């Protein structure tokens, strides 16, 4: 039995995309060293590239890769100078070898431990994101570099430094216990949400939505829900990104950003909305509300409205007020002001905007929201100034087109609405 080199490449790529996280987690558990686990998996991949064209592609590819990687680790340990210190790990690996026939399908799932390692707060935020995408998401270094507009070599160095720090600094490969657990789950959730937002907002570049990173975040959030079924905020995050992502086809038209109230709601992904809603409902029943569940609830209210006018703004404003209590920030206050502008009126909202002027003075969405409120309040002169401030802070072409159109409309109007 033989296999064409192309088929071997495809099989390996597919296996790694699906199972890289599971393999690295199982190897790290057996070897006790994340950096070495990566190296041994790499060795196993090279062995597969060499062997599979002649021997054919094995039935259980991940089982094959795991076994070969374990043997590579054993070889390294046996060659090591401090053989005595390694004897415990050698025993573990030899036992694993004895227990596992060549083509096992049962790889113990240690991915939760791995995700806590990759999202450890002792690592830089961008590093956590890259390492999680690489290790759990199975993306290649080149793909991650492209997503973050980095050079592959730079991204490769970042990943190598991270692996080295994990090994040398003793960043643990374990599920944190007690009080630390909630904090560390939050660290994981924020990494997944960052990945999603990077894909969704695409703060630079010409392609408005980088779908791949959004799908990647959904994959990781689903994995977290599967691994932490009892944590409502984990489900809250999955619901939030499913609901948000359901609108992605309607968010851009001819390269220009389309605001929520002008979107064609038929383009929304109603299957995803239904899924997000049911996940959120189940999570909220546990009675441990948190920021992700609240944001998901707000997004769900938008998704449920048949039209922009049908949006339940008073309810959305109430949810933002709750959010301000449990996770206060000026961004939350800005969103509250926007909700109030629809629930009560633009003047009421502008009062809430006043105290935010200083801290959000360089934040594009602040000026975009303020401009819109001023326009609706009939203060066209001031609206113009705010649109120009927003434009000056805009980096994406799609947002720029939108704001230019709005500014043009306001420019055609007198400075104040005639009374």
């Amino acid at each position, binding site marked *: 039995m033989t296999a064409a080199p192309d088929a071997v490449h495809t099989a390996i790529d597919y296996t790694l995309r699906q199972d890289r996280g599971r393999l690295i987690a199982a190897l790290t558990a057996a070897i006790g060293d994340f950096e070495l686990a990566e190296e041994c998996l790499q060795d196993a991949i090279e062995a597969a590239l060499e062997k599979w064209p002649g021997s054919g592609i094995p039935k259980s590819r991940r089982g094959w890769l795991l076994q070969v990687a374990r043997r590579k680790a054993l070889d390294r340990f046996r060659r*090591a*100078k*401090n053989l005595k*210190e390694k004897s415990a790990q050698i025993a573990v690996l030899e036992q694993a070898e004895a227990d596992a026939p060549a083509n096992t399908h049962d790889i113990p799932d240690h991915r939760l431990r791995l995700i806590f390692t990759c999202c*450890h707060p*002792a690592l830089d935020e961008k590093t956590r994101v890259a390492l999680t995408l690489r290790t759990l998401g199975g993306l290649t270094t080149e793909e991650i570099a492209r997503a973050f507009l980095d050079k592959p070599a730079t991204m490769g160095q970042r990943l190598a430094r991270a692996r080295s720090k994990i090994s*040398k*600094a*003793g*960043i*643990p490969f*374990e599920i*944190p216990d007690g009080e*630390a657990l909630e904090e560390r789950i939050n660290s994981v959730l924020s990494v997944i949400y960052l990945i999603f937002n990077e894909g969704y907002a695409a703060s630079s570049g010409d392609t408005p939505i980088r779908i791949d990173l959004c799908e990647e975040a959904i994959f990781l959030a689903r994995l977290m829900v599967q691994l932490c079924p009892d944590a409502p905020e984990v489900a809250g995050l999955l619901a939030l990104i499913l609901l948000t992502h359901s609108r992605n086809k309607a968010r851009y038209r001819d390269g220009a950003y389309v605001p929520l109230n002008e979107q064609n709601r038929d383009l929304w992904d109603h299957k995803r909305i239904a899924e997000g809603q049911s996940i959120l409902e189940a999570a909220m029943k546990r009675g441990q509300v948190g920021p992700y569940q609240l944001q998901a609830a707000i997004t769900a209210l938008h998704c449920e409205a048949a039209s922009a006018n049908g949006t339940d703004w008073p309810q959305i404003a109430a949810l933002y007020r709750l959010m301000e209590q449990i996770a206060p920030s000026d961004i939350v206050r800005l969103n509250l002001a926007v909700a109030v502008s629809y629930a009560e009126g633009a003047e009421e909202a502008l009062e809430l905007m006043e105290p935010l002027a200083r801290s959000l003075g360089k934040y594009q969405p602040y000026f975009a929201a303020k401009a819109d409120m001023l326009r609706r309040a009939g203060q066209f002169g001031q609206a113009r100034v705010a649109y120009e401030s927003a434009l000056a802070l805009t980096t994406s072409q799609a947002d720029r087109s939108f704001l230019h159109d709005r500014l043009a409309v306001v420019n055609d109007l007198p400075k104040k609405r005639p009374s």
Partner: protein
Amino acid sequence: MKYLALIYSAQDAGPQPNTPEFGQLMGGYQAAGKKYAEDGVMLAGEALQPVETATSIRIRDGKAELMDGPFAETKEQLGGFYLFECDTLDDAIKYAKMIPTAEYGTVEVRPIMTFD
């Protein structure tokens, strides 16, 4: 694994000697030291004299050059250290967080290198 916790702070930051707050700070160090002893994690720990007492040494072309002062003129200066024996970075961070100077200065945790 062994970890060194390096304690940095600016001289004018935090409680100054002969104030009630300084007494509280020292109390915080005592409490931390007691916990370290109970858990058996502290291998060493010392406070340093201020940077004005430092002498820096370089050997160039076989000749020692002495400099009056610290290696780096930074606002935050190394003021002391602890050497911990812990299983993981998480444990080392847990103990480093108990160092009272972390409230206004910075504590850097570094693993000690082992040579195999």
